[in-house]
């Protein structure tokens, strides 16, 4: 079930909200767990058992790690917990990738397993790992109530596409949380903003990217249009999901961490990754990069650490060489920035460093979205006319005219301009009151507009569901 769907918005959500707020506090986690399992069951009827098994494994391992704290057994149980979770993730996500590559290298013909990827497994597996590691490190108290741990992992707002909420972020909220109109209104507003970003911007740009792929009359300009549109599409698609997840969490009293912070205004790749998919990059930083020694090692070990983390980051996104190359691309750029470019970029006028960032990120996402490296190379060559396409034609002009307004809105929306303008206006007490009147009106208008798009049955897939 997608957040941006009629069945979620007008069937599932009202039922959950009504049930949640009419039961006494002590049953609220139970209701959230029950509805979250239903939410997952609708999309993955069989794999709900896999998720429950993963949670149960984490629950038992957490208790054992805590029980044998200070002994070797504690570490063994931690390793066992990680091995089980990573093995399940590896089996369901990567088996066919390895078989395909073994077949190609050794000319063998091992049959593919063709296992469907359980939705959200990459996200909830990382949450479970973060829980057991945090318990082992003493950063989190062991959760002895299975219901609370299951609620944390299965919580439907963040279950299938993040943000990767660390156990420590919601540890207190799971035990007790406040429900206020302020929290609910903030959550609803954030959810509706996410809905608009997804349906009115990301989906529309996604359609253009799909049209580009089907078009036989590409031009240099169309390749650039595609590159820009896909960068905006993936940002609005994924950050919209995070907005909706954070908003839904807030409605139910949880404070999930932010996952995006206007990444396209960055001036370097290093800064970009502090602003893009923050929950994933901090996860890798805390559970891989720092344990490997982080920055506090020699130059070559630092490069090795960067390489490992970005290989894993790429591979986490999908079982395909394009994702591995995508990860390596960032690893190389980050190494270059660490070696010398970072300091040089700081001295450059910000317009140049921003163009540097945007161009390289666009190249990275062209690789990311390609169906194989052959297509990625074709798409990159197309940007420079190296595959013999003309500079411009009528078809490109059509798409440019048809999507120009949405692209301009998306570019403005990808910067903090609107947010800062609203905050600035709110400093004036009169304007604050006016904005307070306008806010509910805008929310109603957005709900009507997004519902209209959903009812018309428009293009609506979520990119990050495949990870």
């Amino acid at each position, binding site marked *: 079930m997608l957040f941006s769907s009629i069945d979620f918005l007008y*069937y599932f959500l009202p039922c959950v909200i009504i049930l949640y707020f009419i039961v006494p506090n002590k049953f609220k986690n139970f209701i959230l767990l029950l509805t979250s399992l239903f939410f997952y069951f609708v999309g993955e009827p069989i794999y709900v058992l896999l998720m429950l098994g993963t949670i149960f494994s984490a629950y038992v391992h957490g208790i054992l790690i805590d029980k044998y704290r200070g002994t070797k057994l504690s570490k063994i149980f931690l390793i066992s917990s990680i091995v089980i979770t990573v093995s399940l993730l590896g089996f369901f996500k990567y088996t066919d990738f390895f078989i395909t590559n073994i077949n190609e290298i050794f000319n063998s013909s091992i049959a593919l397993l063709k296992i469907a990827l359980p939705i959200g497994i990459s996200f909830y597996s990382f949450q479970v790992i973060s829980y057991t590691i945090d318990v082992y490190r003493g950063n989190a108290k062991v959760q002895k109530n299975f219901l609370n741990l299951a609620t944390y992992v299965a919580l439907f707002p963040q279950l299938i596409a993040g943000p990767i909420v660390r156990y420590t972020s919601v540890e207190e909220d799971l035990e007790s949380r406040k429900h206020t109109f*302020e929290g609910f209104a903030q959550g*609803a507003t954030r959810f509706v903003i996410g809905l608009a970003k997804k349906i009115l911007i990301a989906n*529309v740009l996604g359609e253009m990217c799909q049209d580009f792929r089907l078009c*036989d009359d590409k031009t240099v300009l169309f390749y650039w249009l595609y590159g820009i549109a896909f960068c905006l599409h993936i940002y609005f698609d994924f950050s919209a999901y995070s907005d909706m997840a954070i908003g839904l969490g807030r409605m139910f009293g949880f404070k999930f961490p932010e996952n995006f912070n206007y990444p396209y205004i960055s001036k370097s790749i290093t800064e970009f990754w502090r602003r893009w998919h923050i929950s994933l990059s901090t996860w890798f930083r805390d559970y891989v990069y720092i344990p490997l020694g982080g920055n506090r090692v020699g130059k070559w070990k630092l490069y090795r650490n960067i390489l490992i983390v970005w290989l894993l980051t790429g591979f986490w996104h999908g079982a395909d060489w394009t994702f591995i190359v995508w990860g390596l691309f960032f690893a190389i750029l980050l190494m270059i920035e660490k070696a010398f470019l970072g300091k040089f970029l700081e001295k450059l006028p910000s317009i140049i460093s921003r163009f540097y960032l945007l161009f390289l990120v666009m190249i990275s996402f062209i690789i990311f979205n390609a169906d194989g490296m052959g297509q990625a190379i074709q798409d990159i060559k197309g940007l420079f006319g190296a595959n013999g396409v003309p500079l411009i034609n009528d078809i490109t002009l059509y798409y440019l005219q*048809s999507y120009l307004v949405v692209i301009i809105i998306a570019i403005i929306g990808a910067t903090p301009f609107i947010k800062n303008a609203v905050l600035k206006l709110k400093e004036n007490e009169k304007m604050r009151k006016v904005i307070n*009147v306008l*806010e509910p009106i805008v*929310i109603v208008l957005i709900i009507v507009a997004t519902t209209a798009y959903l009812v*018309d049955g428009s293009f609506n897939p979520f990119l990050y569901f495949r990870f």
Partner: protein
Amino acid sequence: MSDKIKNIVVSVVFIFIITFFFILSIITDDVELSYSERRNLAQLPQVSWDTVLDGTFAKKFNQYVVDQFPFREEFRNVKANIHFNLFRQKDNNDVYVVGDNILKIEYPFNENSIIRAAKKFNDLQDKYLKDANVYYSIVPDKNYFVAKQYGYPSIDYEKVVSIMNDNITDMEYIDIFDCLELEDYYKTDTHWSQDKIQDVVNKIATQMNFSDRLQNVVYEEKQIPNFYGVYYGQLALKGKPDTLKYLTNTTIQNASVLNYEDNTTTKVYNMDKLEAIDKYDVFLSGAVSLLKISNPNATTDKELIIFRDSFGSSIAPLFIDAYSTITLVDIRYINSNLLDQYIDFKDQDVLFLYSTLVLNNSVMLK
């Protein structure tokens, strides 16, 4: 408004909207048909363990709630308005407007599909039409007249014709492109208007050598108001309907149409279809795989077979005066290998009449 009141208003408004539509969705009766979209709407799917476990129930349920959502038409209208007027997009679900004409983008150009259609026609000729006089003609879709001029993507019409001419053997091509202009088509629909295609009829009749049998034929024009064509519903904007006009005379009125699918006999213009989703089905009862028009007033024993798509439904009545029988074959709905079970192929005149829309999507030809 204070922050505190705003938070209460936002919370209440949000919960009210989603709950209101939830309740409304449940209490309102389900609708079977969408007249504007020309399709059956999804109904509440049956629940079973199998459909729940394999995920089909969830998919069908999602389609059901979308199709049955309250104020569906109004919401579709809102979407179209945002698309065109706010985002300034040039089409909505590939449907666009030029003046008061509604059109649908036909793109990309599928060269292989055209070749496939040509081969299909050749195969049919080899199999059934060795002794017949075989002609073929191509009906340009509406995009031909405006797409390029207004910057919309379209197929390469010259290439369609040249591919067909290069690949079709032993058939004579009848070029009707010059006999048509945008005004000859309905504003809200795909099809041509029967009252505007006399030039096409003349061209075909001349080239197929039956124009002498149509020389003194006169028609009376009848009108059916409020014809909302297929593109009208897809566009989802408010606009003016077309008037559906049809031409009739004594021969047409006396002719009978045998439907091989259900073995029923009807008139050429089936007025029962005025109540159907698509009023264009008045012409020969709409999409039927195999029909035979018999002309009891015929002064000739010549017979005609038309391999056709829906454009054929409205032009075929204008050939009735020239033939004793006209058989209409729509190989989108019948496997062409079975045709000799129903048709006695001999030395009939044969016309393949297909629109560029079908040729560019010829996978539907069986």
